[in-house]
């Protein structure tokens, strides 16, 4: 990489930026140039480091090493307000609106117009909001509460909020994921409009066809490094997938496991969504012993909800779930675990670990009944089981009495998997088991899943990572909008087929709904 030559087209440059978190390296010496009056596309799989890089540019996070240069001059952003003052706006992947406030109040949250420096000038606030929403070509009433809006409309408000400040660089992190087809068209018109005004746009998306349509230049990140750069006019979807995913290297099993008897059968599962429509749309599936099934899908495809339904977390669902031929209807989570169904939840911090407790207590939480002698926990027996599972899963920990919060992401994940294994399950559901853990730990997680399948469990995992699903699963299911849109044996599956199935539209024509997993 040539050092910063004053290229008049480049407004912002990130040079040799690195960012490390406890246990993982999110960005490793990344160079990234943002061009004026252009749509600068950033692509990469989940965990490639896109969002981290954007947070650094927007001042949300500070880089561990490296620097930023704006208009050729070095800059340091200490906070998001700092970056805003320099004309950098960001639309986050997760919605950042206050649902209890009105649209107009949200749009001028940072610096509302005031009368005589005392109270808020509501008239002016409303006027400002109307103006911004008119620019978005969207008939949203600025006085309505944000919580009353559909997710797609909230996304529009979010974008309008970023435009409220005078931006020179606008970062959009998956802005289209919650929008309907018509709303996406509006978004693209706004982007074209901003481009004409000279605004530099950084656009992150998983929808490859979208990128080819509106992008100018593209940067591909993989595992925290820049994998490739290109002009969009020179590339196609195949190139993008190849660069994003890389060679498939997760080793296939020595022999594909012969699928055994049916363990888990799902018939006609339907879960209605509060806002209307269906989160799960007539799902019928069957999982067998010895088989690893990977469920691939985009954010909000309904994968987590499927697992939570199987565990009995929703009352509104209809359809039947059978484990070893027995209907699970009406059983509590505890009773399902007893019968041999366990979940390794997606959000390790929120649903997985109990941070204040030791590794030992975390591991045995779901299987305490096994260690009881009358009323008391037999500590020797508990310790033996824990030592054994730490050894089997090679959890790196100095002692089982260490608080689980001190472990790296990968090791925390193994603790959560270990907890499910101690219950002696028949079927294990892993929701995004590799989210937020480093590459080495990922491979180990899949080796563990393979071993479990070899031991005769039915293993199901979800992922948004194409390489993982292609490399680690015996059978690949694709979900989109609550439906199963693809079901392939590994030998039959190709990346193109899987990607195509994952972007299938739902019956009512809208695209995916990101709010569903939030």
């Amino acid at each position, binding site marked *: 990489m040539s050092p910063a030559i004053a290229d008049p087209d480049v407004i912002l440059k990130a040079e040799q930026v690195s960012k490390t978190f*406890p*246990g993982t390296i999110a960005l490793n010496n990344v160079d990234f140039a943002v061009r004026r009056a252009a749509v600068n596309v950033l692509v990469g799989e989940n965990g490639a480091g896109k969002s981290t890089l954007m947070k650094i540019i927007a001042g949300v996070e500070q880089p561990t090493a490296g620097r930023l240069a704006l208009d050729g001059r070095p800059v340091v952003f200490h906070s998001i307000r700092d970056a805003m003052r320099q004309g950098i706006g960001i639309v986050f992947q997760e919605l950042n609106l206050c649902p209890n406030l009105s649209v107009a109040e949200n749009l001028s949250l940072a610096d509302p117009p005031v009368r005589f420096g005392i109270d808020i000038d509501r008239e002016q606030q409303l006027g400002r909001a109307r103006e911004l929403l008119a620019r978005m070509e969207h008939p949203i009433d600025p006085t309505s509460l944000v919580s009353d809006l559909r997710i797609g409309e909230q996304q529009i408000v979010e974008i309008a909020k970023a435009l409220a400040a005078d931006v020179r660089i606008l970062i959009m992190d998956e802005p289209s994921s919650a929008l309907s087809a018509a709303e996406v068209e509006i978004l693209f018109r706004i982007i074209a409009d901003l481009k004409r005004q000279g605004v530099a746009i950084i656009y992150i998306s998983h929808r490859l066809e979208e990128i080819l349509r509106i992008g100018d230049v593209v940067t591909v990140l993989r595992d925290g490094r820049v994998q490739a750069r290109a002009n969009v006019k020179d590339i196609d979807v195949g190139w993008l997938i190849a660069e994003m995913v890389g060679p498939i290297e997760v080793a296939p099993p020595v022999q594909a496991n012969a699928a055994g008897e049916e363990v888990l059968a799902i018939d006609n599962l339907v879960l209605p969504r509060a806002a209307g429509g269906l989160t799960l749309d007539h799902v019928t599936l069957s999982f067998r012993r010895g088989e690893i099934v990977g469920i691939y899908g985009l954010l909000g495809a309904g994968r987590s909800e499927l697992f939570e339904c199987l*565990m009995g977390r929703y009352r509104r669902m209809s359809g039947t779930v059978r484990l070893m031929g027995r209907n699970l209807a009406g059983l*509590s*989570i*505890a009773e*399902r*675990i*007893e019968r041999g169904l366990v*979940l390794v*939840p997606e959000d390790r911090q*929120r*649903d*997985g*670990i*109990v*941070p*204040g*407790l030791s590794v030992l*207590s975390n591991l*045995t*939480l*779901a299987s*305490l*009944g096994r260690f*009881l002698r009358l*009323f*008391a*926990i037999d*500590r020797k027996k508990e310790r033996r089981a824990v030592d054994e599972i730490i050894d089997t899963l090679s959890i*790196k*920990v*100095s002692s089982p009495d*260490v*608080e689980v*919060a*001190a*472990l*790296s992401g990968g090791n925390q994940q193994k603790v959560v998997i270990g*907890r499910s294994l101690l*219950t002696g399950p028949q079927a294990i559901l892993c929701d995004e088991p590799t989210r937020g853990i480093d590459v080495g730990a990922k491979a180990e997680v899949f080796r563990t899943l393979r071993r479990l399948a070899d031991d005769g469990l039915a293993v199901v995992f979800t992922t948004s990572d194409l390489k993982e699903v292609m490399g680690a699963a015996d059978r690949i299911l694709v979900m989109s909008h609550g439906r199963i849109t693809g079901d392939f044996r590994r030998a039959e599956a190709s990346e193109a087929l899987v990607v195509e199935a994952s972007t299938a539209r739902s019956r009512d024509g809208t695209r995916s709904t990101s709010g569903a997993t939030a």
Partner: protein
Amino acid sequence: MTSGATALRAVHAPSRGRSLALALMRLRTLIALILVCAYFSLTTPNFLALPTLVIVAKHVAINAILGIGMTFVILTAGIDLSVGSIVGVAGMVAGGLISTGLHITFLGLTIYPNAIETMLIALAVGTAIGLINGLLVTRLNVAPFIATLGTLYVARGAALLISNGRTFPNLVGNPAYDNTGFPILGSGTLLGIPLSICAMAIFAGIAAYVAARTKFGRQVYAVGGNERAAALSGVRVNRIKTVVYMISGFCAAFAGLIVASELVASHPAAGETFELNAIAAAVLGGTSLAGGRGSIFGTLVGAFVIGVLGDGLVMLGVSSFWQMVIKGLVIIAAVVLDQIQQRMHRRFALQAQLLLA
């Protein structure tokens, strides 16, 4: 594993000073207790004499028993503001049963239960109020602060209604009704130790065992540490939460019986603001109001710090106004130290783990 072991030794060798600091921090409440005792024994004649210590311990017993129940509730990230009122109600129920008996209107009968039965009924009433708290929190989704604030008022009102606000005096019972013996709980001894102190020891022993060694105890910690993770691991979160409020109600009722028995009278205002002492004991002992962290032993030590400080300052002749100021400062200092210890602990653990990776 060998490389891991050497790495560990490498971590431990230069950090002996650190682990000592951490150990001192962890035992800070106990150290504070020892310092307070040492100070009063130097400044107050007879402070270490057995009769004084027994009196102090009797005062502590009530707060300690309340604090033990409170600790279970706080461990689940809840709070029980109603314990002071339950103290009042339990005393009044016992006083009423001894003084006027139980009227069964449609039979035109009045039953006088004996002393043991009387106490069991009072304990059942306290546990039932705890059950109501638990159901409000789990079934009706009322925030624990609000639910127990409500029962605080209701139970206090009920205590006043039982006697129309009057005191039941002279609860010695009547040999003719075979209901004598209630004052023994407050004044009797076992092997020379007052019964209330024995009760405190038994409560603490059972509670510490339950918290540390049983499935229920482990699940209490898990619910407070991460409720969602506990639920997904098959913990019956609602049941656990309901039971901790019942435990708290039971403990409060027992404390109420001790108070009434020691006075040989029950007053409807008994136990006012006791809930604050119970919370203070738990917090001083290192229980986190965010849930998931704390111990019965810690609460016991916390109750002793409050009790010794209170009685010692009285003996020193410090005005009760200053006593309150000092008590408040001690509580705040305890929580500040707790935060510092948490931060130290987390940093050391993270460093040890990094070296291992």
